[in-house]
C-alpha cells in the first residue's frame, strides 16, 4: 500500500519540522517545490478539520475519537480505520489538484438519512500567483492561522442548529476548468475512483450562509463558511 506521504517524504518532513519548532529556517525557492509544500500543509489541515467537524457535529459517536496533537494544540481524531482510510484516500486524490492550483473548493457535505444535504462546510482555497517567501517565520505564522481555524471549527455549534440524527457525510471537490478530465485518466488510488457529484449534493435548497473564518497568508488563502439548510428536520 502506498501512502500519499511516501510520494514526497522529504517535503512532508520538511514542513512538519518547521511546524514543530517555530523555526527560523528560511525557505528558498530552489530548495523546495512550493506547490507540493502548500499541498502538503493544506491536506494535513483538511484531514484534521474533517475529523474535527465529524466530532463537533456529532456525525459519529464521540467514542471513536481520540485526542491527538496538531499545531501544538489538542485535536480530536478518529481511530476508526475505514473512516480514516476514506478520508486519507480522498485527500490523497485531492492533493495533485491543489498542487496545480486547480482545486477551487473542498466541500464536506453532511446529509440526513434521505441523502439530502443539511450542512455544507466549504473550504475555499486559493493560492496567490506569486508565492513569496520573504518571511522567516512564514510557517509558524501559517500554523497560527490554522490553529485559529481549528478553534473556530470547535465553536461552530454555537451558530449552527442541531443536525437530525443518522447523518452521513461526503467530500466533494470543485475544480477549476477541466482538471478532472485528467484525473479520470489517471487513477491515483486503485478502487477509489472519483465520480461526478449528484446535483442534489451540490446544491442545497434554502441555504443560509454562515461565515466561519478567513485566513490570508503568503502561501495560501482559505475561507471557511457553512451553508446550512434553514429547516433541518
Amino acid at each position, binding site marked *: *500500500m502506498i501512502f500519499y506521504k511516501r510520494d514526497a517524504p522529504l517535503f512532508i518532513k520538511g514542513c512538519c519540522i518547521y511546524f514543530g519548532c517555530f523555526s527560523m529556517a528560511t525557505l528558498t525557492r530552489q530548495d523546495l517545490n512550493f506547490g507540493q509544500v502548500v499541498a502538503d500543509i493544506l491536506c494535513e489541515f483538511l484531514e484534521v478539520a474533517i475529523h474535527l467537524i465529524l466530532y463537533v457535529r456529532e456525525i459519529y459517536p464521540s467514542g471513536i475519537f481520540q*485526542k491527538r496533537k496538531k499545531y501544538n494544540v489538542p485535536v480530536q481524531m478518529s481511530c*476508526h*480505520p*475505514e473512516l480514516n482510510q476514506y478520508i*486519507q484516500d480522498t485527500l490523497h486524490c485531492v492533493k495533485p489538484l491543489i498542487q496545480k492550483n486547480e482545486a477551487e473548493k473542498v466541500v464536506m457535505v453532511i446529509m440526513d438519512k434521505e441523502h439530502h444535504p443539511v450542512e455544507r462546510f466549504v473550504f475555499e482555497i486559493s493560492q496567490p500567483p506569486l508565492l513569496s517567501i520573504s518571511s522567516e517565520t512564514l510557517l509558524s505564522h501559517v500554523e497560527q492561522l490554522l490553529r485559529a481555524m481549528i*478553534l473556530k471549527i*470547535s*465553536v461552530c455549534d454555537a451558530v449552527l442548529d442541531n443536525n437530525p440524527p443518522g447523518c452521513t457525510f461526503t467530500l466533494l471537490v470543485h475544480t477549476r476548468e477541466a482538471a478532472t478530465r485528467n484525473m479520470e485518466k489517471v487513477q491515483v488510488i486503485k478502487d477509489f475512483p472519483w*465520480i461526478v457529484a449528484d446535483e442534489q449534493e451540490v446544491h442545497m435548497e434554502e441555504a443560509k450562509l454562515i461565515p466561519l473564518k478567513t485566513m490570508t497568508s503568503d502561501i495560501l488563502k482559505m475561507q471557511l463558511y457553512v451553508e446550512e439548510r434553514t429547516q433541518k428536520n
Partner: protein
Amino acid sequence: MDYLYLDNIDEFVNDQNKIVTYKWLSLTLGVHVNTAKQMLYHYLQQKRNEGSGTPLHATYLVSGKCVENGSKCHKVSVVREDKLNAVKAKMDVTISVHVYSVQRAELKDSSPLYNTDYDAVKENIKNCNKYSTIRCAAAVPMSSAEVQRAQEMALVPPAGKEISKTGLNENTSATPKPSAKQPAGIMGMFASKNASKSQESSKEVKTEQKDDSSLVETSKSKTASKANPMSNLFGKSAQKKADEKPNKSVKEETAASSTAPAIMEQSQTSPKSKIDIKDEQSKVSSALKVESKDTRNKTKRPEVVDSDDEKMESQQKKRRRIKKPQPDSSDDEVVPDSPPVPNVQTPSPKKQVKREPVSHQEESSEVKRRKRRRVLKSHTFVDEEGSFVTEKGYVSESYSESEEEPEPNSQAKDSSSLKQSFGKREEEKKEKREKKTSTANKPTKQPSIMGFFQKK
C-alpha cells in the same frame, strides 16, 4: 467602577463567538487575573438576569481537597456548569471556585480552552505571569548559554525527562482514569477485531522481516519510562499495576515483534513524537482537568471490570500508546526534528523472534491498521443468518464475524463483556450492514460503523 469591560466581553462572546477564558481576558485587557475572573462573573450574572438572547455556557475551575483511592489529594478541575454542583459535593473541602471561561458554544471537550489561551500566552511569553498571582523567585529566564546547553541535553534520549515529569505530576488526581478506561472499551474493539481478522488474512507482507530485536530493546527502555507517566495518569493506586506493566508489556512487545515493520520504516520520528504524546499526557494530567467534559464517560461500556481485564486493558492501552508514536501522516503528530536519535533505532536486521504466528499477525495487523496500511482482501461469505457479508481487509464493520471466529489471544478478554452487550444487536446490525453494502453503489465508500455502536 468602569463598566466598559462588560461591553467588551459582550463583543467577544456574542459578536465574535470567541471563548473568553479569564487568562485570555486578563492578557487582552491588561488586568490582573483576579479582576478578570470577577469581570467574567459579573458579566455572566448580568446576562443571566436579563434572561434574553443567546444562551451562554460557562466553565468553572474548582479546587479542593478530597480523598481519592484511599489517598488525600488536592484536586483542581475545570468543569462544565452543569457538573459544577456534583463536583463540589464530591470534595471534602472546596477551596476555590471561579469562572474559567464564558462562551456561546457548548464545548464537548477541553481542547478549545487550551487553544484559546495558546496564542495569547505565546505572544506574551516573556511576561505571561505579569498579571497572575503565582510567583516564584527562582523562575528567572535562562541566559542564552544555558538555553543552548538545554537544547543539547534535549537531544539525549528522553528517559530522564520522563522521570522528572513523574515528580511533577505526583499530586495530580486520577480523574483521567475512568475516562481512560472508557475509550479503551471502544478502542478495544478495534484491536480485538483486527486480531481475529488477521488470522484470515494470509498476505503478511515484508512487515515481518523487519528487525524485531531492536524493537524489543527499544521498547524495553520505552516501557520502563512509559510506566511512570502512565502510572501518573492512573493514579497512585495503579502504581502497583504499573510495575507489573513493564514486564508484561515487554513480553507482549516481544510477542508482537512484528510491529517492527511499519514502525521501523518511519522510526526516525518515533522518539520525539513519543515525547509529544507525553507532553500531551502531562498537559492532560496537569492542574486543569476536564473530567466532566469527557463525554466518553457516558458511553455504554459498564465500568465493572475485574482486575484481570483491567490489566489486559491497561497493557493493551499501554501497547497502543507505545505504538501510537509510530509516525503516520494521519496520526497528525508533529513530526519532530531530532536527527541524531534515529540512529539508535535504525533496524539492523538480525534475529527474528519466533512467536506464534497468530500473535504476529495480530500485531502486524494492528500496526498495519494504525499505519493505514491495509491488506485489501475481500471475503464474501454467508453467515449464520443467511446474509451475505463482504468483508475487506481489516474492515471493522464485520464486528460480529469476529465473535464467530476463535480468539486465542488474550486480548479478546477485555472485549468479551462488550460483545455480550452487543450480542443482542447483532441481528439488527447485520441487516443494516447488508443495506449499507448494497447502497454503497458509489465508489466513494462510506464507512458504516453502525455495526459497532449500539448507542446514541
